[in-house]
């Protein structure tokens, strides 16, 4: 129990460490948020702009100011989107990315686990051949090929789904598939691997020896243990899914957070970038805790 308390207490410390690391690393980058294609009208105008965002203060002060605001839950004003605060941007976009990520997670698990299980059971047969072809395609067809391909066939060709934009039921199908298939292929590989390991282990032989039916053996003794590597993989995967994917959001013009990860970097929107990193970090910590709890629940021997 104590270790869990410590881990929870470590979260703010981790957030602080990440914020500090990120704050100073970002400042080492070439270029800055106020470098623009069109030079400012005058030096005074540029100075006024810098002063507005406290850019004229020493770096140490800026850092303390940032931490002070952070402690109050204020991530500061966005340096690029000048009519929005970072909190405001996150509040608008996080729900979208969470929805898309959760849907893609369902696809990844719902497709990946069965495919993994069946390919492990039907080793050498057509089930394995089919599933390994599927996973192969999932692994080596990048999102920026898979997405346009799905759009070309199912939206522009067959006209089953809308081509882009976020909204009602059918709009979610193609982005969910694009994002989900990529992860489903990975889940299937891990699941299959877990199954193969477990199928050889003595406790399965023992279960069989006790005269349990094959289905019962698989469901009660094999699958839960085989889920272990998948579950280890789940935490980071879910964090990636829920914080949005740059490529998928860009392709389907979805107003999620994924675009900010890349765009804020290229526009040197330091406050937005740090907001994104801290959000990701927090989510990851929560998921990582959840994963470890889940691992222990599946296999009580861990961490005892």
């Amino acid at each position, binding site marked *: 129990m104590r*270790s869990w308390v*410590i*881990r929870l207490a*470590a979260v703010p410390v*981790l957030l602080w460490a*990440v914020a500090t*690391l*990120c704050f100073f*690393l*970002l400042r*080492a*980058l*070439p270029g800055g948020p106020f470098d623009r294609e069109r030079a400012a009208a005058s030096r005074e105008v540029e100075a006024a702009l810098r002063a507005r965002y406290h850019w004229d203060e020493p770096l140490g002060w800026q850092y303390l100011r940032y931490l002070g605001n952070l402690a109050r839950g204020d991530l500061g004003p966005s340096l690029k989107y000048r009519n929005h605060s970072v909190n405001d941007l996150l509040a608008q976009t996080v729900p979208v990315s969470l929805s898309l990520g959760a849907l893609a997670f369902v696809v990844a698990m719902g497709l990946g686990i069965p495919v993994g299980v069946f390919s492990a059971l039907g080793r050498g047969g057509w089930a394995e051949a089919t599933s*390994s072809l599927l996973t*192969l395609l999932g*692994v*080596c*067809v*990048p999102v*920026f*090929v898979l997405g*346009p*391909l799905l*759009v*070309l066939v199912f939206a*522009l060709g067959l006209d089953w789904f809308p081509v882009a934009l976020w909204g009602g039921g059918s709009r979610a199908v193609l982005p969910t598939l694009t994002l989900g298939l990529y992860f489903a292929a*990975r889940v299937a*590989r*891990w699941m*299959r*691997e877990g199954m*193969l*390991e477990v199928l*050889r*282990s*003595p406790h399965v032989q023992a279960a069989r020896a006790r005269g349990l039916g094959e289905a019962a053996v698989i469901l009660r003794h094999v699958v839960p*243990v085989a889920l*272990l*590597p998948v579950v*280890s*993989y789940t*935490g*980071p995967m879910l964090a*990636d899914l829920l*914080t949005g994917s740059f*490529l998928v959001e860009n392709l389907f013009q979805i107003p999620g957070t994924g675009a900010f*990860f*890349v765009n804020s*970097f*290229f526009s040197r929107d330091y406050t937005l*970038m740090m907001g*994104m*990193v801290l959000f*990701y*970090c927090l989510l*990851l*910590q929560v998921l990582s805790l959840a994963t470890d709890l889940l691992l222990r629940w599946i*296999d009580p*021997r*861990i961490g005892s």
Partner: protein
Amino acid sequence: MSGPASSPGRLALGRFLEDRLAVAGIVFLALALLLAGIGPGLLGVDPDRAGESPLAPPGAGHWMGTDIHGRDLLARVLVGLRISLAVGAVGAAVSLLIGVGWGVVSGAAGGRTDAWMMRGVDLLQALPTVVWVMLGMTLFEARCAGWLAERWPAALPALRLGAMMICLGSVSWLTMARVIRGQTLALRERPFLLAATALGVPPVRWFLRHLLPNLSGVILVYLTLTVPAVVLYESFLSFLGLGVRPPQASLGTLIADGASQLNPIRVRWWLLVFPAGLMALLLAALTSVGEGLRAAFEPRGGDGPRA
């Protein structure tokens, strides 16, 4: 158990050679390596040379057609293969070495060490991959490239590639460490490893002889996932202007270029099909070799763990 003829390695090799798919895979990989090594030289076509027939479909002059500058696609695919193989292999190796080392030590040590090591992974993983890699590459360009260019101007392209491989490898080991640690945690409570520990087997031997064989499946799967992931990530970086420099090509950048052919107006299929097809074949070969290796080292009958 007497004589080299029946050593486990020999037996495994025999079993591996029986697996036709795996043999085909390894032959293909060898061929790809060979092509990447001497192909561009054999072909004798400058992959960067602009030609007089831009966007020509595959034909007698250009077997894979040409791109918008009239450059020969076959020549570009061959040099791209070279770079991508290097990036994939080094990136995966970096992440493999760090990931397995970290995961095993953490999982085997347990307790406080485990907790601290995992917090380390947490800290690194708390920076999203894409941010980490963008930061790394941009800082390398801004802070190191100029310094290096003064000292070793000729080696700069290679150093830049090296920086990218290290950047990619150093983020992809984290998942590996997590998975390996999870496996190690589970395995070390198994009777055969408990027994080995109780018997006082020295750590290195404990790791090499007892633990590693049981992790090999996970490691192989991981490798077959990481190599393509690293290769494709490189193309994403190039897309952002942080990867290989034009006019250099990698399979990833060629595929990214070709992806724009997926439009409803006009499709120049060769720009996508050849690089993507080669990539798929490579990965299929890699997977089948991985499968073959695993099957070869797996004792028949499947009774009990390999120890």
